[in-house]
């Protein structure tokens, strides 16, 4: 019986993640429109787009093109299973933060493989930017993860969430964790790939970068993957710093608040160039994360 419940959880969790991700995408387009003082699309617009993409004729560019996109989607789905959502956490006991750190690289890698096989120069520029950006945010991200591991003496996300449930949220529990939380929030747009850091998929410069050759069903898979990426970045933040939640509604509200604050930044800021992004990411966020790590080690 327990076995069956576990299997059901493994099937249901990616679906929940997908629904939340698509909802957030629709909300993003709606709120951005309101900030620009226009009416904006209906909240179901990403879903309508996805229905259209699935009906269109997709054009393949060989085996690696098909394989890479499935690899990145599989990476995202597995990553979803490792992050606890309320009480549903099918694989969180077996992995922990180290596995999450590794799995986070599979998604960009799969897209790189796939769009590299299309042979479009715009796609290769986009991929090189994506990896440089990943280099930028991985450094503070690893420092942040180290700080959390050290201060809770645990690798398991479930333990960290439980400690926070018993006490206070980690972002307000101590000074080093507060610094770390701020650093994570500052690099969150880079992890999600939204506006100040969307030089990877800049439509005006490199005709939407890696996804330039995607059409039809491939584009649908890509937008599913984008929805999952949004979900992963936000739930990781909520679980690590805002104490997760046993209650679904409370958890969702926390995700929503973090996302909407990020959205305000997304709606008003212009795009960084790649070297400006690296300068930013290796500047204040890295220093904050480093300060947090050193303080945790001393105290």
């Amino acid at each position: 019986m327990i076995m069956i419940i576990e299997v059901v959880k493994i099937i249901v969790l990616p679906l929940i993640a997908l629904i939340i991700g698509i909802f957030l995408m629709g909300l993003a387009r709606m709120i951005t429109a309101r900030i620009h003082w226009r009416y904006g699309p209906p909240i179901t617009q990403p879903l309508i787009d996805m229905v259209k993409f699935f009906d269109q004729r997709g054009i393949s560019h060989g085996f690696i093109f098909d394989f890479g996109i499935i690899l990145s989607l599989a990476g995202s789905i597995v990553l979803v299973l490792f992050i606890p959502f309320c009480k549903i956490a099918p694989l969180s006991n077996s992995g922990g933060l180290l596995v999450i750190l590794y799995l986070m690289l599979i998604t960009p890698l799969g897209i790189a493989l796939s769009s590299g096989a299309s042979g479009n120069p715009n796609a290769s520029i986009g991929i090189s930017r994506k990896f440089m950006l990943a280099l930028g945010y991985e450094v503070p991200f690893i420092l942040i993860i180290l700080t959390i591991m050290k201060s809770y003496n645990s690798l398991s996300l479930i333990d960290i969430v439980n400690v926070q449930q018993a006490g206070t949220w980690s972002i307000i529990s101590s000074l080093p964790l507060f610094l770390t939380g701020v650093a994570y929030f500052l690099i969150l747009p880079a992890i999600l790939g939204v506006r100040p850091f969307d030089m990877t998929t800049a439509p005006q410069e490199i005709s939407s970068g890696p996804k330039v050759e995607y059409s039809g069903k491939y584009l649908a898979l890509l937008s599913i993957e984008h929805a999952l990426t949004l979900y992963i970045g936000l739930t990781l933040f909520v679980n690590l710093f805002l104490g997760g939640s046993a209650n679904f509604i409370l958890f969702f509200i926390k995700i929503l608040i973090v996302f909407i604050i990020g959205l305000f930044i997304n709606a008003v800021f212009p795009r960084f160039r790649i070297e400006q992004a690296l300068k930013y990411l290796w500047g204040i966020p890295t220093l904050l994360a480093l300060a947090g790590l050193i303080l945790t080690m001393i105290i």
Partner: protein
Amino acid sequence: MDRNKISKWLKGPAKMGHKYSLSAIYFCTGCGIIEVPPVITARWDAERFGVIPVASPRQANLFLITGYVSLKTLKAIIRTYEQMPDPKYVVGFGSCPINGGMYWDSYNTIKHLDKYIPVDGWIAGCMPRPEAIFIGVTHLWTLIDKDMAKGYVKYREKYESYRKNQEQILGKLEWKPLYPIRRRK
């Protein structure tokens, strides 16, 4: 969403998807492109109709031919059109693609665009106002609803004659035919 719409969604979700999610390719084919930025930005906001500009023809299903078509542009237009995935709609914008407009006696512009690629709808005027694009879009919705926006099917069926017209005006084309050409005995 009214009840009528829900039954339509249940009957044919794909068709409604094509109808309410038009990705227009952002490709400057003529002077009419100057009307497109106000349409897609905050002043006239095309996104509330589901029209959004995309950068690559692979992701697009709506092609706006904005303004006059010179010989070189025609070449690019044909290549872009052939790269778009299959349910695709072409709208001629302005009077130049309809019948030449003010370039009616020019030696290097195309007078009738629909001899070279199938066009699903026209928006007349020089220049049409941005509101005219929205009227065009709502007309296109009606056409899609009634299965009348079948330009891409027509292109597939009558590809030989379209290709013949293209070769007549552009000389030998350096790309392969999109569909197999049947030789007549």
